C-alpha cells in the first residue's frame, strides 16, 4: 500500500507538485493522467525516490520512505519501474538484463536468477530472445523485457512512466496486453499513460494532475463520464 501525505516537490524555485495526498491500496491499479508538464512523472519518481520529495510524506507498506532513516535501496528493491525509453542495459543480453539486479542486489545465484528470468520471459512472450542483445529487439519487445527486468526483483509495486509513448502504434498492444495480465496478478500498479482506453479498462482509479495539483481522484467510469473539474473536462475533450 502507498500513502502519500501533503507531498510537495520543487526544483529550485519551481514547485512541480503541490500538496498531493492520496492512497493506493495493495493490488490496486491507478492510472495517472494529465497534460504535459503537470508533474505526473515527478509524482511517480517520488514513489521510488528517484526524486527526493521536498516536503510531505510517502508511506510504502507503512514505512515512511521520506524519513532520513529509511534505506533508499531497500525501498527501490520493492518498487519496480518501467520507463518510456526502456533503459535496458545495452551491453548485457536479455538474460543479463534480467539477472543483473537479482544477483547483485539480492545476492541470488546465477542459476536461481536465471530460473526467474526464464519464467518471466515466458510470461512476456519472449522466451526465444533470451540470448539477444537489446539492440536486436523491436521497441515493443524491449519494453516487455524492461517489464520483465523490473519484475525479476519481485517487487510489490510497479511504476510505469508512459510505457507505450515511445512505441510504434502496432507495438502498443503487445505491451498493454502484458500490463493487463500483470494487473490481474494482484500487484500494485501506478501507470502514467496517455492511453485513455487502457486506463478506462484496466485502472481501478484515475488520478488527474494539472499544474502540480491533484485535481481529480476518481474511479474511471466516473472520471471519464462526469469529471468534476473544468480542467479535467477540457483535457478529456482534447484527448478523447
Amino acid at each position, binding site marked *: 500500500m502507498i500513502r502519500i501525505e501533503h507531498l510537495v516537490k520543487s526544483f529550485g524555485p519551481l514547485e512541480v507538485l503541490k500538496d498531493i495526498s492520496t492512497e493506493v491500496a495493495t493490488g490496486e491499479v491507478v492510472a495517472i493522467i494529465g497534460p504535459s508538464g503537470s508533474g505526473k512523472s515527478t509524482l511517480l519518481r517520488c514513489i521510488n525516490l528517484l526524486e527526493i520529495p521536498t516536503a510531505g510524506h510517502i508511506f510504502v507498506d507503512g514505512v515512511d520512505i521520506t524519513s532520513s532513516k529509511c534505506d533508499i535501496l531497500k525501498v527501490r528493491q520493492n518498487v519496480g519501474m518501467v520507463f518510456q525509453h526502456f*533503459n535496458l542495459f545495452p551491453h548485457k543480453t536479455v538474460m543479463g538484463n534480467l539477472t543483473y539486479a537479482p544477483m547483485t542486489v539480492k545476492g541470488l545465484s546465477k542459476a536461481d536468477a536465471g530460473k526467474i528470468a526464464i519464467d518471466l520471459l515466458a510470461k512476456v512472450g519472449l522466451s526465444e530472445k533470451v540470448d539477444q542483445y537489446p539492440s536486436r529487439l523491436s521497441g515493443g519487445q524491449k519494453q516487455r523485457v524492461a517489464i520483465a527486468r523490473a519484475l525479476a526483483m519481485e517487487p510489490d509495486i510497479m511504476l510505469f512512466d508512459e510505457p507505450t509513448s515511445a512505441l510504434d502504434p502496432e507495438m502498443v498492444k503487445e505491451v498493454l496486453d502484458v500490463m493487463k495480465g500483470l494487473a490481474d496478478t494482484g500487484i500494485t500498479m501506478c501507470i502514467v499513460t496517455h492511453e485513455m482506453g487502457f486506463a478506462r479498462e484496466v485502472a481501478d482509479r484515475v488520478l488527474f494532475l494539472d499544474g502540480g495539483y491533484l485535481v481529480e481522484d476518481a474511479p474511471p467510469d466516473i472520471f471519464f463520464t462526469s469529471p468534476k473539474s473544468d480542467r479535467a473536462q477540457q483535457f478529456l475533450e482534447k484527448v478523447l
Partner: protein
Amino acid sequence: MNLDFGQILPSLPFILKGVLVTLQFTLLSALFGFTLGTLLSLLKISSIKPLRWFAEFYTSIFRGTPLILQLALVYFATPQIIGYKISPIEAGVFTFALNSAAYSSETIRAGIMAVDKGQREASMSLGVAYRPMMLDIILPQAFKNILPALVNESIALLKDSALVSTIGVLDLMRRAQVVAGQTFLYFEPLIVVGVIYYVMVMGLTQAAQVLERRMRRSD
C-alpha cells in the same frame, strides 16, 4: 655524409631490449593512470563540492606544469623529502601515472556524462548501489565510447615516455644515446629508435581501429 648502420649492428640487441622497457613502462603508466583517472573523474562528477574542487585542482596542477619538471621533482626530490631512494623506473611510472590521470580524468568524465542518464535511473530503480552501478553499468559503456580517446592518450604516453631517459631509465631513447656515446655515431642509433617508435605507434593505432570496428559491429 657517410652513414654507417653496419657499425651499430652489434648494438641492435641492446637497443631492442629497450622496446620491452618502453612498452612495459607505457603499459604500467596507462594502467595506473587510467585507474586513477577514473577515480578522479568520479570525484569530478560527485555531488560533494570539496571533492570536485580537489579533482579540478589536481588536474590543473598536472596540466599547468611541464611533465619533465614533474618527473625531475619526483625523482630528485623524493629521496630528499621522504628519504626513500626511488628508482628511475618507479619515479617514471609514478609521475606518468599521476600526469596521465589528470588528462584521462577529463576524457573519462566526458564519457560518463555521455552515457544516457536512463541507465543510471534504471539501475537505481532496481535498487543497485552506487559502486556496482558504476562498475557494471556506467563505466563499461563510458569506456566503450571513449576507447579511441584513451588509445590516443596511450600513444601520447608511449612517445612521452622517452622523457624518462633524462633520469636514467634504460628505455629505447636512452639506449640510442648510450650507443651514440660508445660509437660516436648519432644519426644512426637515433634513426633506428625513431623507426621503432613509429612502428609501435602505428601498430597501436591499427589495433585500436580494428577494435573499434569490431565493437561497432557488435552494436
